[in-house]
């Protein structure tokens, strides 16, 4: 008897604990199904956990809390580059109808699956109430409008079409400056290969080849033809595309052998370290080059590296944008709207972007905050003559299926190096996209 007593006490304790946990979770469920105008808190879901971006989010959060003293900000960020883990978690939350109050997504077609599944709400009224239609560039709004509706609020703009190069290596190869066209680019790559022992074009894992592909397509086809590729019924089998893919195949011959073992950082680093001449990567590379250790490389613009528009794309902004949404059934809808207001505000964007290393999507931001490369990006973005083209790899104009199928076609190309098969793959990817 004496021996058994403690065990029984333990059982009772376990039972009590279980009941308590059940009761608590019951309360939690009640609390979460709050009404539409609940602004007691806001749960913001993102993948901004890295250096720079997390600081930017914190700065925006501080400003938000100052303006909305009654609303508790809950940062539900999930780590993992370009949001791979975060998107998996988000998918299951949305499936279970337990959405966060607002989540991060690339503006444009990447959101289409959420839109079609009725998981996020149109934000036309929000844009109207806050007079946002006049503060964002019209081309941007046009390119993220789906069937006449806007579904997300852009907070920043990144540029995909940037050519990073090492001036020292170019000099060694006798290349006078950044190539202006795809043809000049191929000539420059050949010069580097023939006259130096450096890598002509550094490349990383498979997705950086997708990134390169969108830049070659834009450079060869021009902005209008590139944008037309993403419209329903576009002709991916056209001779102009064949030519661009042949150029892509030619350019790929000058890339790193160990590409698949490196991510974009390793590939970009090769340029500033003087091991490679060129790298085509989005402008997040700038923060990585110039930031201080351990997260950055502490390199100097103009001495260690230079930048230019990717060959043949000057005057076009191949853009991508992080934006925030309003999920259907968001437990704290009013809180979410307050957050979207912060995200769309001039102050919010000017607090976030200098830290993240991107520029505000709004036209009226404070120019003085953006220096070095960002000054160039800012001027290009706000130049009325600049044409906008959406980055397919970074979610603007291909939905998830199309995006993955292009990635597969490019992955197969990396093995068989057959530009004809790549084009066939791209044709059927476009056909199967369901757009």
């Amino acid at each position: 008897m004496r021996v058994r007593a403690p065990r029984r006490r333990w059982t009772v304790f376990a039972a009590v604990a279980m009941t308590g946990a059940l009761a608590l979770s019951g309360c939690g469920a009640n609390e979460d199904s709050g009404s539409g105008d609940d602004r007691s808190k806001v749960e913001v879901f993102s993948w901004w956990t890295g250096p720079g971006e997390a600081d930017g989010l914190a700065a925006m959060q501080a400003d938000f809390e100052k303006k909305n003293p009654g609303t508790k900000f809950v940062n539900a960020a999930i780590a993992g580059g370009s949001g791979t883990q975060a998107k998996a978690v988000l998918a299951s939350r949305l499936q279970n109808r337990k959405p966060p109050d607002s989540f991060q997504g690339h503006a444009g077609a990447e959101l289409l699956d959420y839109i079609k599944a009725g998981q996020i709400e149109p934000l036309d009224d929000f844009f109207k109430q806050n007079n946002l239609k006049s503060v964002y560039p019209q081309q941007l709004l046009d390119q993220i409008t789906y069937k006449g509706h806007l579904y997300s609020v852009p907070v920043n703009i990144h540029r995909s079409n940037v050519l990073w190069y090492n001036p020292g290596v170019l000099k060694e190869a006798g290349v006078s400056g950044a190539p202006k066209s795809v043809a000049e680019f191929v000539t420059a790559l050949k010069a580097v290969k023939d006259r130096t022992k450096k890598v002509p074009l550094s490349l990383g894992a498979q997705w950086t080849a997708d990134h390169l592909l969108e830049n070659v397509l834009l450079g060869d086809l021009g902005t209008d033809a590139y944008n037309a590729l993403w419209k329903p019924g576009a002709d991916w089998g056209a001779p102009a595309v064949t030519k661009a893919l042949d150029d892509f195949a030619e350019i790929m011959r000058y890339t790193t052998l160990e590409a698949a073992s490196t991510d974009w950082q390793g590939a970009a680093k090769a340029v500033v370290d003087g091991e490679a001449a060129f790298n085509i990567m989005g402008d997040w590379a700038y923060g990585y080059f110039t930031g201080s250790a351990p997260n950055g490389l502490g390199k100097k613009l103009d001495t260690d590296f230079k930048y230019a528009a990717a060959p043949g794309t000057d005057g076009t902004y191949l853009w991508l944008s992080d934006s925030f949404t309003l999920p259907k059934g968001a437990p704290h809808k009013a809180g979410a709207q307050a957050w979207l207001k912060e995200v769309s505000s001039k102050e919010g964007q000017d607090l976030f972007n200098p830290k993240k290393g991107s520029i505000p999507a709004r036209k009226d931001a404070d120019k003085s905050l953006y220096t070095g490369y960002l000054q160039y990006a800012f001027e290009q973005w706000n130049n009325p003559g600049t044409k906008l083209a959406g980055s397919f790899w970074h979610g603007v104009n291909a939905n998830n299926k199309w995006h993955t199928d292009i990635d597969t076609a490019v992955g197969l190309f990396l093995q068989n190096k057959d530009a004809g098969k790549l084009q066939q793959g791209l044709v059927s990817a476009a056909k199967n996209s369901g757009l």
Partner: protein
Amino acid sequence: MRLRRAKKWLPGLLLLSPSIVAIGLFVYGLIFWNTRVALSGKHDEVSGYGFDKGRNFVDLWHQPSWPGAVKHALLFTAVFVVGALVLGAFLAFLMDKGVRGEASFRVVYLFPMAVSFIASGVVWRWLMNPAPPERAVGFNQLFDKLHLGALANDWWQDPDWGMAAMALPAIWQMSGYVMALYLAGFRSVPEELREAARVDGASEWKVYRYVVFPQLRPVTLAALIILGHISLKVFDLIMAIAGKQIIAYVPAVATYVEIFDRHDPANGATIASYLLVAVAVLVVPYLVWTVRRERPR
């Protein structure tokens, strides 16, 4: 009377019931659900679960990435299973012959199993970097320094045989486990049998070839099953070394990509079903065999 009989089986049933319920729900329930999704036309979030006559199972073979994934899985499985079995058996043989400090050797060989594939995969990615001599790192650099430059190769980035290199980390990790299985097997062979063979004039090699190894068939089979199903389902090792790149695409990675990247649950479930069948082909005959063997006792 009835009560007394109940007393016999009821406590056992009660004890087992949580696990029966959990397995029923989370294993068989989910297998059922997965099969249902695989047989449906749910190729995006919006479509329903309508029956699709198993068309997915045929259509999958027309997906550009799928044949390669199957080829990769088979090559990986062949190299990994054979490699781990041979190396494990060899290590066990050496142990059995009696090394000084056997215990510490055992620990050394078993240790890799304690490391997760995700962690060791990162290191192996660095080791198996195919960069040319001037930028070489890892094995290629080592070969270069030892003037064995001819041995340097593309490792897992070789378009045809890359998956064989991908099996190296898995062999390294699991051969210690196979060694432990075999060592237990060796030790369970009675010394009298070996001595009898030796008295009859059998060489040491013949003792193992004709006396010890034939008794280890159950061990070999168990190891084969365990390694085989690990290898068909391999996911974490591939993700750590190559990510989702086509060059090292395998069915488990394809399942993830179909569901979370392509947003195509039906295709993902179809691949998962194929994986289940592939593993069942290995495991079910083994189960039948063990049940038959145990029945007479």
